[in-house]
């Protein structure tokens, strides 16, 4: 058993970055995730693992530091919250275009604009449908506990390097701020410079002696070549979609109705599920762990299995519900319940929504 600690989600995330063998963290403070950079600067990982930690002048700078650092084959990451993530979108698009592995964490807060500092899930469209310009995809992992804030960090790095693609861990202010018991994984040593060079021959870390120079760019002024590059990216996204969907299900085997919820909303919905089952209503819960790629096929299986309706529960005005509807494709009823502005729905509200919106009438 790994080391047990009582930690905030943001602290568990920061500790996991060090333990995952990250080479660099570049970030800019913003509530509700400033504990990440505070933890990292206090932990002085440059003295233990050699990890670089740098407070950048802005999120624009930090994402471009990831762009530069990731292109050299090093494991680099950043974290921020909604307004800061918006500033990073141009950089993320370049990183996706140039196929650079990086890990970005969004501890989502209420929006739009400066909004507030309370937990929200209203950045779902931004992370799963683009956000920046051009046809690209982020792999998006959604933790729903402090444990997962830690566990998802090495998974995110593995996926980023496996596919040479930016990976986002999309959390929210509640999971970032709450304290829970967490079992920390055994530290993974940082790669040596030689290992980086041997493992990632594409990386720009000094032209090999007698070899070819490497170029990291998202630019190609020849439309035919850029189209080919786009097709290559789309094929990669297709492979990811086929292989990397992750979800968790509760009580779906005999369910008449299924709640679909991720992150904090999934935690609330678990309680709602118990309350509904106690009333004799056969309800299941599907928790997408990857928001992209989305568990579309799983939802379609549930429809085939006889589920009569789905309720998407979100801390947004209804974003993920669009993906549930796409999967269901009109075959059964899909309803939405959400709270916005940084308000967390209560289990009772979810129970009420399921009874009245989905079953009632």
């Amino acid at each position, binding site marked *: 058993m790994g080391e047990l600690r009582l930690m905030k989600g943001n602290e568990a995330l920061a500790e996991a970055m060090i333990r995952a063998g990250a080479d660099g963290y570049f970030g800019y403070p913003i509530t509700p995730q400033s504990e990440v950079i505070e933890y990292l600067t206090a932990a002085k990982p440059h003295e233990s693992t050699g990890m*670089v930690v740098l407070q950048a*002048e802005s999120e624009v*700078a930090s994402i*471009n530091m990831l762009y*530069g650092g990731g292109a*050299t084959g*090093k494991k680099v990451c950043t974290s921020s919250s909604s307004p800061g993530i918006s500033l990073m979108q141009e950089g993320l698009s370049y990183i996706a275009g140039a196929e650079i592995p990086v890990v970005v964490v969004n501890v989502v807060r209420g929006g739009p604009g400066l909004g507030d500092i309370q937990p929200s899930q209203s950045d779902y469209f931004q992370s799963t449908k683009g956000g920046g310009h051009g046809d690209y995809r982020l792999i998006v992992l959604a933790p729903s506990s402090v444990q997962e804030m830690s566990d998802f960090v090495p998974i995110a790095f593995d996926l980023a390097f496996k596919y040479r693609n930016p990976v986002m861990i999309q959390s929210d202010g509640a999971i970032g701020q709450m304290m829970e018991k967490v079992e920390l994984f055994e530290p993974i040593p940082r790669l040596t410079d030689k290992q980086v060079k041997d493992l990632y021959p594409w990386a720009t*870390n000094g032209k090999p002696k007698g070899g070819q120079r*490497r170029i990291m760019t998202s*630019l190609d002024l020849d439309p035919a070549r850029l189209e080919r590059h786009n097709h290559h990216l789309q094929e990669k996204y297709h492979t990811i979609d086929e292989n990397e969907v992750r979800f968790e299900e509760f009580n779906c085997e005999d369910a008449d109705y299924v709640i679909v919820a991720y992150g904090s909303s999934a935690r609330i919905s678990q309680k709602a599920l118990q309350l509904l089952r106690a009333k004799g209503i056969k309800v299941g819960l599907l928790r997408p762990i990857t928001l992209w790629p989305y568990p579309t096929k799983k939802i379609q299986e549930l429809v085939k299995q006889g589920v009569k309706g789905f309720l998407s529960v979100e801390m947004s005005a209804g974003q993920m519900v669009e993906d549930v509807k796409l999967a269901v494709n009109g075959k059964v009823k899909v309803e939405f319940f959400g709270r916005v502005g940084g308000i967390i729905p209560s289990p009772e509200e979810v129970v009420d929504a399921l009874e009245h919106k989905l079953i009632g009438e």
Partner: protein
Amino acid sequence: MSEIAIQNIIKPENLVYQKSRLMTEKPLSYCPGCGHGTAHRLIMEVIDELGKENDTIGVAPVGCSVLAYEFMDIDMQEAAHGRAPALATAIKRLWPDKVVFTYQGDGDLAAIGTAETIHACNRGEKIVIVFVNNGIYGMTGGQMAPTTLEGMKTSTSPYGRDVALMGNPLKITELVAQLPGTYYVTRQSVHNPGAVRKAKKAIKKAFQNQIDNAPGLSFIEIVSNCNSGWKMTPVDANNWMVDNMFPYYPIGDIKVDGELIK
């Protein structure tokens, strides 16, 4: 001269000039007479002479020199517009033994990327910044740059830069020289052989500083022409540059070994 006579002249002992080894075979995409090509060549010669071909990572900007990586035969990255110093910061910190430089235009470095420029300089990142100041946005077709001179006509200051409306030309090089993080700050040009020799010396000093792990950033401005954007012949552009740009952007060292030149 006959073919035979020419063959007799082409001998190693008569060689006075050749294509720099670290420039690729690709023909330069720059307008004839543009200073970018010369600046590229000098950097590649310096890297070659310092034996750093396999240990250098260059960062290209967005601007006319966005394709710098096509011409420089070393590992290179293309930055987003203005962000080259952020990329270079991370590269250098993650690979402290490597030589890292950015190559940037005035729009890139002194407008959209001002924050990244100032903060990389202020942190004293151990990198080299080569800043090509042609007083205009070349790539996008000749719009006003932060460095455009007062009265100078561009496509977005068609009646001349009115400083009351559009602000004053920005002497960013003097500005970064004030920051304790810069170690060497100089302004050069590449419009004639003498200037090219001096510019190369300055570039070499900057890279040598980095190799010697000098405590701070080396910043080289190259005042250059943009004959297309200025709508002049290459010769007229160079003359105009000497007469108009040099008085406002005087050539010479501004800070050497961490000390401002009085």
